[in-house]
């Protein structure tokens, strides 16, 4: 390990601590704080069952973030492929040893700890792709031959998650992968071709009944919410009513009538933005959105400041995943995206997603702390 760091350039832990991106940590904490107060409100003014655990989980996740951030980013680069393949192996194993929750086989249990391989894959794919593009020249990025590995790397987990079935996660992974490939420098011509192919694939999936009826239902309902006001569209309509009735400054903390009267489903997870928006209004919701945007832009600035290509790509991957979460979730509760079951990062209740996000930002932090690492040494290293 010591060979990773040149003598004399080794930084003390204390010094590294000061180099942590504290504004980012504070922003993340504020977002999680919004989650805690909203969960407190959803539980009708109780710390149980969600708010307290959400806060504690964030504490643990923050510690993990810092821990990952203090480890040199090049260490993570060496682990990138192993992480990707372990996650892939777990996904392959899931259909055989996984637990069925709510009709889908998504969880596996290892040593008493339950985890979702699909969540691990969100990190695995980002690291794997970043590692792959680290090894490519600019002119190779758009070369068809060099495009085959990333397509396989993205396609394999998507296919495995899709059959679980989990449409939301597979779409999210696919989108993350595609954006990473694009940012890595894929030519516009190929990009367009890819989009066309994706649309064709989507149509094929529909045509050959690869989608579960409820998934088709969701998409159709999204396309026309008035189609079925009591079924899928009902939730969306209730969500819009709750948000819209919140108005400029909201109904006040714990005063959200629609949420308190349980007109909304999944209030503590997928529809939590609605409750926040109902109680804190347009002003509150905009503040939350700006916090997210700030995190994203800070992430991108860290990416651009990184000298290591792996770090750049990994940070971008994390930020892309994070952005997609925020956009899909907020879009979904406002009727701009189909209701696919994507949580609002750090605000929605749920340990696994929080861990994934915070671990992801751990890599961002690592890239930031070690942004000045000499490129030459990376060549010595490998």
């Amino acid at each position, binding site marked *: 390990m010591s060979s990773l760091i040149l003598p004399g350039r080794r930084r003390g832990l204390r010094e590294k601590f000061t180099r942590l991106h504290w504004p980012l940590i504070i922003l993340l904490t504020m977002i999680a704080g919004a989650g805690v107060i909203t969960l407190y409100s959803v539980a009708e003014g109780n710390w149980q069952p969600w708010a307290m655990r959400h806060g504690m989980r964030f504490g643990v996740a923050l510690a993990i973030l810092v821990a990952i951030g203090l480890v040199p980013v090049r260490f993570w680069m060496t682990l990138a492929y192993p992480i990707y393949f372990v996650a892939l192996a777990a996904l392959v194993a899931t259909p055989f040893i996984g637990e069925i929750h709510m009709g889908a086989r998504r969880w596996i249990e290892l040593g008493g700890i339950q985890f979702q391989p699909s969540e691990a894959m969100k990190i695995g794919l980002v690291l794997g792709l970043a590692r792959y593009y680290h090894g490519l020249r600019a002119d190779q990025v758009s070369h068809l031959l060099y495009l085959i590995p990333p397509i396989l790397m993205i396609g394999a987990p998507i296919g495995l998650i899709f059959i679980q079935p989990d449409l939301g996660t597979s779409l999210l992974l696919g989108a993350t992968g595609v954006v990473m490939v694009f940012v890595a*420098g894929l030519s516009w011509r190929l990009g367009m071709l890819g989009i066309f192919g994706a649309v064709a694939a989507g149509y094929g999936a529909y045509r050959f009944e690869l989608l579960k009826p409820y998934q088709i239902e969701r998409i159709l309902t999204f396309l026309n919410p008035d189609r079925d006001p009591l079924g899928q569209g009902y939730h969306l309509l209730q969500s819009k*009513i709750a948000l819209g009735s919140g108005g400029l400054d909201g109904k006040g903390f714990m005063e959200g009538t629609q949420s308190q009267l349980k007109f909304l489903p999944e209030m503590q997870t997928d529809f939590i933005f609605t409750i926040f*928006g109902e109680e804190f209004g347009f002003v509150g*919701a905009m503040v939350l959105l700006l916090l997210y945007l700030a995190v994203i832009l800070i992430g991108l600035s860290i990416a651009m400041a990184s000298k290591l290509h792996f770090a750049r790509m990994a940070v971008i991957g994390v930020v892309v995943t994070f952005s997609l979460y925020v956009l899909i979730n907020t879009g979904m509760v406002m009727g701009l995206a189909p209701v696919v079951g994507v949580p609002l990062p750090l605000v929605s209740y749920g340990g696994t997603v929080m861990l994934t996000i915070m671990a992801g930002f751990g890599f961002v932090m690592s890239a930031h702390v070690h942004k000045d690492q000499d490129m030459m040494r*990376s060549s010595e290293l490998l």
Partner: protein
Amino acid sequence: MVGMNAHDPERQETVSRRTFLFGGGISFLFAGIATRLYQLQISDHEKYLDLAQENQFNRRILTPLRGEIIDRFGNVLASNRKNFRVLLIPEQARDVDQALDRVSKIFPVSIEKRARIMREIRRRGTFTPIEIEDNLSWDEFSKINFDLPHLGGVLPDVGETRDYPFGEASAFVIGYVGAVTERDLAVQETDEQRVLLRQPGFKVGRDGLERTYEDELRGEAGEMDVKINAHGRVIEELTDDATPPEQGKTLALTIDAELQAKATEILAVPGDRMPDEPQSAAAVVMDTVTGDILVMASTPAFNPNDFNVGINPDLWRSLNDSPYKPLLNKPISGVYPPGSTFKVLSAIAAQESGVSPKQTARCNGRVWYGNRYFHCWKRGGHGTVDMKGALKHSCDVYFYEIAKTLDVDVLANVARKFGLGQTFEIGVSGQQRGVIPDRAWKRQYFAGQPENQPWFQGETLSVIIGQGYVTSTPLQLAVMTARVASGRAVRPRLVRAVGDIVLPAPDAPLIDINHDYLKAVRAGMNAVTNEYGTAARSRLEDPKWQLAGKTGTSQVYQITAADRERGLAEPEDLPWARRDHALFVCYMPYENPRYACSVVVEHGIGGSRAAGPKAREIMRAVAEKDPASRPTIDPNSLAQRRGTGVRAG
């Protein structure tokens, strides 16, 4: 190679450019989200605020209790009882089929019922609660309540349903209530009324007083806003702004429920010679002073309690098909030739035409008139009879002799003065007018047949003994008797008070006729029962309640010579529907009349045999109780009863 890549500035530049582009794209999408947020929360805020209010607050109609119907002494004839029922709010159930499946684990929900529920959902929309089942047992009801968390959209409810403690005995007077139809909704004047009528399980009067006094009995709906959650469960009742419902007005009748029940019982007692034959009969008892109808009974009857919960089709069919017409309100809707009871009026008309009561006629059993014989009921005749004797023995020939010169218009005029050929304002629909024939009537009746239009004197011979064209209802016969007894144009009534407003007894002016004529008739009626006349068996022994009456047997089918040849001699040999009707009218006490009664037993064969004894028993019960001498219920105490929702035991 790796090292070379690490220094690739072109690659770094590309990534930076694309990252910038990505950042711009993300910001753009965030702007899109913000725009949408602005649209929802600022532009369309009002609209969603309204929808939220709609979600959250629900205006509940508070159904009023239907007014009670009580008899003259406060006995309850119609009231309300608790009805445990289960409603379904389709909008909240989401999946109606599934909800019904779950409910059917507690009590059966038939396919027909499901079909009806689906129909109602289509008709009333998904927001209106729809009744799944009513009149549940407490056991079923509590199970539903217990399972409620799993029964989305299912709403247990305690409603009210109509209860008729006297059942069949009061069926025709009270009528019954039934489910609201489209036509009921169409005739409502205000939207409020329509909303009230759309409440699940709401019933409106379908027949009898329930229908006539629908507006008074219905009451005023109340309103209350309730705060509900997404499952339709009431979180809070906003009672401050609520208007409580107002129970419908109490209807106090002139009926004496006990006597009504007793009379119904007496009517149903089978005749001595035909114990298996159901008695299709009617009885009316009236106060000869006030016109109060104390008894208006009809047998056989239906049970109104079977109707207000939705009658089962088999029962309905059997009621409809029965030859004894259990759905016919015989006292007012049954028309019968009055037969010899009509002679009471014939005797008055005779005197009006100058016949003295002392004048006699000789009866040898038949009279030749026109081209045929007119027979007296008594073969061999009565010998010489005067008016009193003619009434006492119901001699037909005596009246035939009078009829030879009597102007039918005079007879008809008398009949109308005494209440025949007309209907009365008693609040129960379905009254028949009957027929009192005169020249004008015949002209009109045979409008298309000029050869039949002139009145033939021979027809007067039939009419004078209450046969031929003349028909009447038991109520009319009771009115006739009351008027003969009192000399006043007494008018019958059924309703004494509506709410706390006591209706005055209708005025009963003296009848415009020489009242000496009436004395002769009354003496004849007295002789019928008390001087070994045709209804000597119907005499009341108590001198305080001396009963005067008149029998009547109206021919339904004339036994022909051919019938006799076939060995058909006795009326019992005829099929039921061809036998004569038995009638009896009477009043008491003879000296100072207070009660008048009429009884008709359809196809009862003989007035003295079938109708008289029933009338006597009814009058005996009336005499024992003497309801006219007892104070009726105080209208102020009626006011107190209202709103308390008193239940019949």
